[in-house]
């Protein structure tokens, strides 16, 4: 064992989408403060496997905070107690010896549990498929420098584009609203000249899909912004509202 922290974990275990889940308590002993949260779970899982018990399933991949695959609702907060941090970048030094940690999956009707802590976030993919792109084919595009874009606009679009699609916004929101996610993508294209041609049909298409997936409405609590691991701002949501209402009230574009 490589550390001296002993923790009690209460972990949501659920075999699949058709069965009911429950909390199971585990002891995580000998945890080093230098471990990441997921490495702590690795240690617990190795013990479980040695005992012949099914390890705790959770989604993760890059473990450097960019792929957006890790999730986990830790002690009441998505991605745990730290700000601007994904679960994979959360380290055990943010906890103390003897602490009890409750680990739950993202909770939303649109994110059904697949197993234990892993949820199905393909709703996000479908929203993007509804309109999160510029309709250009490969080839036949103008030179990259043919359209100058003011640095401030480009930087703002970049800020919106940094969304990693993890779903913490939905998990944090008391209404399970996906507005921050949708607005980040709509904003990126609404700001850039490349996105102008389909600006209003895009906002409508993506909102339609968002609603169809069963996410809740935004009540502007700001929880999403506070919990977003990459700092996507609420101004994006205001922009989405603007884009959508402008589209609905003043434009006649159809949704593709």
């Amino acid at each position, binding site marked *: 064992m490589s550390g001296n922290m002993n923790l009690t974990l209460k972990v949501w275990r659920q075999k699949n989408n058709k069965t009911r889940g429950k909390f199971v308590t585990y002891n995580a002993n000998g945890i080093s403060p230098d471990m990441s949260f997921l*490495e702590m779970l690795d240690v617990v899982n190795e013990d479980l496997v040695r005992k012949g018990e099914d390890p705790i399933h959770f989604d993760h991949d890059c473990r450097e905070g960019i*792929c957006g695959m890790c999730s986990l609702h830790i002690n009441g907060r998505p991605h745990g107690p730290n700000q601007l941090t994904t679960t994979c970048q959360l380290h055990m030094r943010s906890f103390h010896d003897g602490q009890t940690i409750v680990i739950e999956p993202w909770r939303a009707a649109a994110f059904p549990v697949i197993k234990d802590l892993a949820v199905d976030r393909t709703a996000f993919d479908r929203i993007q498929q509804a309109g999160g792109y510029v309709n250009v084919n490969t080839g036949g595009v103008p030179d990259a420098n043919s359209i100058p874009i003011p640095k401030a606009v480009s930087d703002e679009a970049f800020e919106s584009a940094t969304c990693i*699609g993890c779903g913490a916004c939905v998990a944090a929101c008391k209404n399970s609203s996906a507005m921050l996610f949708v607005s980040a993508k709509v904003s990126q294209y609404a700001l850039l000249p490349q996105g102008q041609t389909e600006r209003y049909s895009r906002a409508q298409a993506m909102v339609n899909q968002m609603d169809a997936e069963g996410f809740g409405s935004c009540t502007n609590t700001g929880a999403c912004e506070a919990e977003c691991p990459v700092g996507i701002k609420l101004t994006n949501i205001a922009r989405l509202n603007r884009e959508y209402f402008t589209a609905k009230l003043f434009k006649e574009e159809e949704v593709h």
Partner: protein
Amino acid sequence: MLDSKVPAGPLAEKWSRHKFNLKLVNPANKRKYTIIVVGTGLAGSSAAASLAELGYNVKAFCYQDSPRRAHSIAAQGGINAAKNYQNDGDSVYRLFYDTVKGGDYRSREANVHRLAEVSVNIIDQCVAQGVPFAREYGGLLDNRSFGGAQVSRTFYARGQTGQQLLLGAYSALNRQIHKGTVKMYNRHEMLDLVTIDGHARGIVTRDMITGEIESHEGHAVLLCTGGYGNVFFLSTNAMGCNVTAAWRAHKRGAFFANPCYTQIHPTCIPVTGDHQSKLTLMSESLRNDGRVWVPKTVELAQKLRKGEIKIADIKEEDRDYYLERKYPSFGNLVPRDVASRNAKEVVDEGRGVGASGIAVFLDFEDAIKRLGEDAVRAKYGNLFDMYHQITDENPYKQPMRIYPAVHYTMGGVWVDYNLMTTVPGLYALGECNFSDHGANRLGASALMQGLADGYFVIPYTVGDYLAGIGFDPVDKNHPNFEKTRKEVEERVHHLLSLKGNKTVDDIHKKLGHIMWEYCGMARNEAGLTKAKELIRELRQEFWDDVTVLGENEEMNQSLEKAGRVADFLELAELMVEDALHRRESCGGHFREESQTDEGEAKRDDENFSYVAAWEYKGDGQAEVLHKEALEFEYVKLTQRSYK
């Protein structure tokens, strides 16, 4: 000898001429073809989207929960393109030349030139998609010099270029999914290739949620499944990165080329303990201002490790800025392989720092004195924050600790100029193939290659093959589909029947240690021979004593891992075999027997100027080496020197 199918003619005209000579598929017939794309990183997403735009039916597969999570997303630095927007003398030819030279003259000239040619189109394409590259105040695109290049040709989006490029390709893919031209299979892992009469005609996948093992048919199969760095257990790759798809294809007849070429990145955050699951890269731009050092003597290093003295107690004259000392003209900016090897050398001497002693310092004290803390923060703030978060040490106050880590694999599935493997109808794109980086990849070139292959090469070359085979539907009822599916099923059930005492990670970690120790930054005959033996024993241990829990018909991460590690255990032996046979040093492959008097890598162009492509001959049988001669008509071979 392997035929690379490189077209004749002057280098700069090869690709244009070849495009003209390639057969075309009639637009009305394209929809009668189905193309399978495995993997949705830069290469896979861009290929799937571009082919669907042309009118082909595409089936795309990824093991992640969304195509957007592929590990291309983690690339930080940037993407090269010979745009010469900065008027600093860049050109297609210069990018070509730099890439061949950077690859230590072990890549194919024609491929690299094509890569440099299409690099300019990539930037145009990405900008048109709305990728928010960094810009200057005038509104035009910004560039920086990267990885010691003499020109500023790297386009970037802060420290998240890979993410922005992948999201661009993902958006193009989404557009096609919406149109119904791409059928996307998330959380599906390719477990085998189906061949009929020697041609690739489909794949077998496992649905990672239901466990269903299904076969999918297509007229061509594109492997865009990335590299195999995770054979080392610890690497900067994502946890799920694996060689399985490529390895299964290899066992079905695709030759595997240069498996020993591994890139070890010098600036990663060091390992803290056995629990470590992966390594985090810090952009190499840090070496522009950071100074690398260790204590001059072993005694001082020991005291420091034990905490008897503090870093500040080590006087300037007791610090060894070894890169500056040994390479006065390049200093801290020597190429990745040189920086990495030197770090290993000082650590092996016992002069390493940090509690484990397996790290060197990267010190910003001088930069902070010279530029001020604010200027340093503006340049590297996000990297410093990341370091601080992971290590709990403040790099503004004390030097960073860094150590090399496995980052990229230049080797991969052998492909010809058309990106086709030795199995007709089977293609390999991006990091999965071996083609463009020779023995060492330059910074900001991986993203370039992935997108070049997907957007601008495969849409032309795959048509040539398809036009030749006719558009009759693939016979779904061909016995090979069921046969291969059964084989996969048996393999899965065999894995699930293993009920030993070791976990899959136990074995994987052991494999990592063996590979790092004997087939890592420096390799020698004795070590490699030993490694071969150790790997065989370990493979036996795996099948005898590992335990795999759960059942197939559910999400089962134990099973997923076990299948991947089983394949790594086979690949590892081939890597060692390849490293053993290549008795020269080149790029990422450093053979201790082949070095200059000054301890630098020494190539042996006379005997090893070839691509080593290995053919699988059956379980337990030695793989057969095929050589593709590398001929250099344009580039002059020189020994690299950074003194």
